[in-house]
């Protein structure tokens, strides 16, 4: 999911950066003092989880856990994911600084959107619906992020269909894994501390 330096065209980089700035503004406003430790832990989880990679065909993909972050943090997923990507770019040269805006938006925006869509079912009384909501919250953001990556690459000159198929196929195992992982987390948090699953997503 990390788009490297030198791949995207300038307009795509600028638009991606501007959208991420908007998300960061909204996200930083949403973080209250008591949310800071939780944001730190989730940034650390995102930073580490992205380093576990799955080798598929000519490419490789990795755990993202953006759906889970969106579910717990809401708009604050933007700063959390931004910090993780920034450190990965600076310390390990994963992705890059010029593509930071696009990469952040591609991962954080679907997380916020899907968390908003399934927030009610995840927090509802019906355990089965919550499980379905958890699975969708984990898996759908990956699919949407993959679509956005393909879209950005297309705008920068690559053929959409080829890229979209490659991105979809390479992320399919991660979609399933993240869906199941998120389901487990939702079921666990519903029992242990359900308040964590209720972020303020305006």
């Amino acid at each position, binding site marked *: 999911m990390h788009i490297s330096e030198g791949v995207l065209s300038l307009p795509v980089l600028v638009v991606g950066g501007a959208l991420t700035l908007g998300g960061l503004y909204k996200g930083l406003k949403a973080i209250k003092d008591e949310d800071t430790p939780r944001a730190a832990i989730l940034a650390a989880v995102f930073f580490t989880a992205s380093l*576990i990679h799955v080798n598929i065909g000519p490419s490789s993909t990795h755990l993202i856990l953006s759906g889970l972050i969106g579910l717990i943090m809401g708009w604050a997923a933007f700063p959390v994911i931004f910090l993780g990507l920034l*450190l990965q770019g600076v310390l390990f040269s994963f992705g890059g600084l010029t593509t930071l805006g696009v990469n952040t938006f591609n991962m954080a925006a679907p997380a916020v959107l899907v968390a908003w869509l399934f927030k009610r079912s995840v927090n509802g009384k019906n355990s089965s619906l919550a499980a379905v909501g958890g699975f969708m919250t984990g898996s759908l953001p990956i699919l949407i992020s993959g679509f956005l990556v393909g879209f950005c690459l297309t705008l920068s000159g690559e053929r959409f269909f080829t890229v979209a198929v490659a991105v979809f196929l390479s992320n399919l*195992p991660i979609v399933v894994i993240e869906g199941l992982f998120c389901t487990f987390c939702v079921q666990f948090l519903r029992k242990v501390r359900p308040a964590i699953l209720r972020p303020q997503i305006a």
Partner: protein
Amino acid sequence: MASSSGRTASRLLFIGVLALMAFSSDLLWAHGVYIFGWAEGDQICTDSYFTRTDKVQGGVVKILQNDQVLAEGQTNDQGEACFPRPKVPGDLVLVVEAGEGHRADFNLRAADLPPLTEETPPAPVETGAESPKSLPQSTARAAAVSLDEVRTIVRDELRVQLSPFSRALAESQTAGAGPPSLREIVGGLGWILGVFGLVFFLSGRKKVKN
């Protein structure tokens, strides 16, 4: 009873997720693509990888000189791709595109490349007054030919013998650009905690002042 079965289901689900992760991935601590290249005789060879054991297979490799694409090809199963060496001397940029926006490049400086092998012109056959009188003309020609042959043999042999060293030298230049170590990952986690700690401290100080 219901909560006990729910707990068992959750545990089974968690074990299932871990098993799926274990079977579908190498669980390698890395993400990023890398490339290095070296001259091997009249060829430029490249090695592209995600980790030292996880090679880029079927990735697109390009050789650029002054932003012009001179050659393009695909990596094999070992992540390698070789191209005929460009005739025009100059710095080269080797680029690998491993799909989904994964891209890396490597600079191969002209100064680091051995001179191109050229067709050695046949040694001039000395005739007439300039020809050494003590050496018959036919013997001089035979000696010249055999000298060329010796030169070619030595050159080919050196090329074969030095090839691993050229590769190792190029690989050593990418020593810092590899998968992160555990120490670097822990360092990154320290940064995250530090940044949020600072935010927490500043926000707390502001509250105390107010």
